[in-house]
């Protein structure tokens, strides 16, 4: 028998916990709850959940602090679920190691899709040699990109940009994360590089199809590669 996936909800609002439990149980998860940041941290250590839904406004400590503590010893996928919807807050959480950020009020179907995507991370990290999403096919071994079967020529920079997005397919990647991985630490503040190259990449990837945008802009935060099935 396959073991159920486990999810931990860290939120101080009882009603939100009840409703999240209902939604996650409906999506075949076993659900645990914690009311405070401290309790959340010890539950994560004890239960080893497959995914954590973390609120930022906790009574005992800020959710961001919980996340930073947590990232010192665990790489469990973490989804931030918060009423705070300013880009700065989102970027801070994502840069601190959150896998995604959903604002309250949330759409349950979208939330569950993000939970699925966050958990899928481990699959790409284990080194699938070929990535396929809709018409896009990336062969990491051959450094080859195909769109609907037709090979697309990318410059080395465009390719590494696409690779980072593909490795995080379905998840938002912040400007800083992209700049650091593709151009190196010193380029972290050079957001204009990113805009130029994303525009190039989009032209090459989307110029030939009518498909909706593959690379989605998250205003003020970063980019997300659409996998078409989230």
């Amino acid at each position, binding site marked *: 028998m396959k073991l159920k996936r486990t999810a931990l909800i860290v939120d*101080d*609002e009882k*009603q*939100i916990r*009840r*409703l*999240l439990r*209902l*939604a996650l149980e*409906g999506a075949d998860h076993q659900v645990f709850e914690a009311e405070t940041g401290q309790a959340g941290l010890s539950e994560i250590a004890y239960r080893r959940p497959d995914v954590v839904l973390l609120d930022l*406004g906790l*009574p*005992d400590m800020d959710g961001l602090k919980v996340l930073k503590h947590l990232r010192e010893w665990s790489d469990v996928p973490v989804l931030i679920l918060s*009423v*705070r919807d300013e880009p700065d807050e989102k970027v801070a959480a994502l840069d601190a190691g959150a896998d995604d950020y959903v604002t*309250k*009020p*949330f*759409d*349950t*179907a979208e939330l569950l899709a993000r939970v699925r995507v966050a958990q899928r991370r481990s699959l790409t990290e284990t080194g699938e040699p070929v990535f396929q999403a809709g018409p896009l096919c990336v062969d990491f071994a051959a450094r080859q990109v195909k769109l609907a079967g037709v090979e697309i020529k990318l410059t080395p920079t465009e390719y590494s940009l696409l690779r980072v997005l593909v490795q995080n397919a379905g998840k938002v990647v912040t400007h800083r994360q992209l700049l650091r991985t593709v151009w190196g630490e010193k380029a972290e503040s050079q957001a204009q590089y990113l805009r130029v190259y994303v525009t190039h990449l989009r032209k090459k990837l989307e110029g030939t199809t009518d498909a909706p945008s593959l690379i989605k802009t998250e205003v003020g935060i970063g980019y997300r590669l659409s996998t078409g099935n989230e």
Partner: protein
Amino acid sequence: MLEPSGPRPIYPPPAEAPIFAPLRQYLIAFSGVAALTIFCWLVTPLVGYGAISLIFLLGVLLAGMILSRGPVLLTAALSALSWNFLFIPPRFTLHIEKVEDALTFATYFIIALTVGSLTAQLKEREHLSAQVQLAQESERLRKTLLDCVSHELKTPLAAIGAASQELVRAAPNVQNTAILRQLATEIQDASRRLNRVVNNLLDMNRLESGVVRPKQEWCDLRELLESALEIERESLNGREVRLDLSANLPLALVDHTLIEQAIATLLANAANHATGRSPIEIDAGYFDDRLLISVSDRGPGLKPELIERIFEKFYRADARKSGGLGLGLSIARGFVEAHGGTLTAENRDGGGARFTISLPVPVRDASTIESHA
């Protein structure tokens, strides 16, 4: 959410005014130098004119600490002139004979000007950084407040959204009525909470813009208390409430809705803090031309330094507990004050808190009303 470090007034105090107004500063500079000159005149026979320059320098330093740049420079220039004219031989001329005197004078003049300008700069920088700090603090408070309001509004909205989406998903499976009922209840609870938050914000706004005018009618106090109890039945959650009303309670001329809400807030507050199965007690009566209504609990009571703060808007006694904007008591006080009354808090003998509404309102024996009717 408010940080546990505790509440602060929402608006920062106005920036401190400079110690003295500009014109007065120049006057102080002038009279300071004059006083110093007289003093030096008196002590010159004892110390000689060379030491006088040090006394004048001290004066400039002192001026730098309390005055702004212009008056400090005036102090420096005036004392240089005074020293040269009155003390350096030949006296009563600006002429200097000895080379060493000229050197001392030049050095003195430069030091005085530099000190004056430096201390003034330092003070200006201090003033600026204090202002920046104040602005940052006020920005932080504004953000905290906004966070708190958006949390209180969006949390029930999120619950309503999630429950109704789940309801749509679950509805085709009509056999499972338990889940349908649970989801509907969730929506109900959340909309009640949302309603309370929105009403609180609107009431606060009404109070602040001064449009709350009590519509005073003759009210039966017992009826008023009972309807307040009915409003808070859920938050009382079965806790015993003891009513101690003086017999033949007269009718009171108050705004039914406003006073009812003030009492309901006190009840909810008492229910929140009462410990164990201790009852809540309500006393009401007419004493010394005032109608007094008090609500008492056997909770942990109030810290003496917080007794007035709990009535501040957006103050929450336990910021770590989620829920609530910290407006309830402040609105209740506003409603009572709109009647010309007072709402106060105190600790009871034997533990717990007591909140008392005191209204200077006309009362009338119930029987006289009936005879009029």
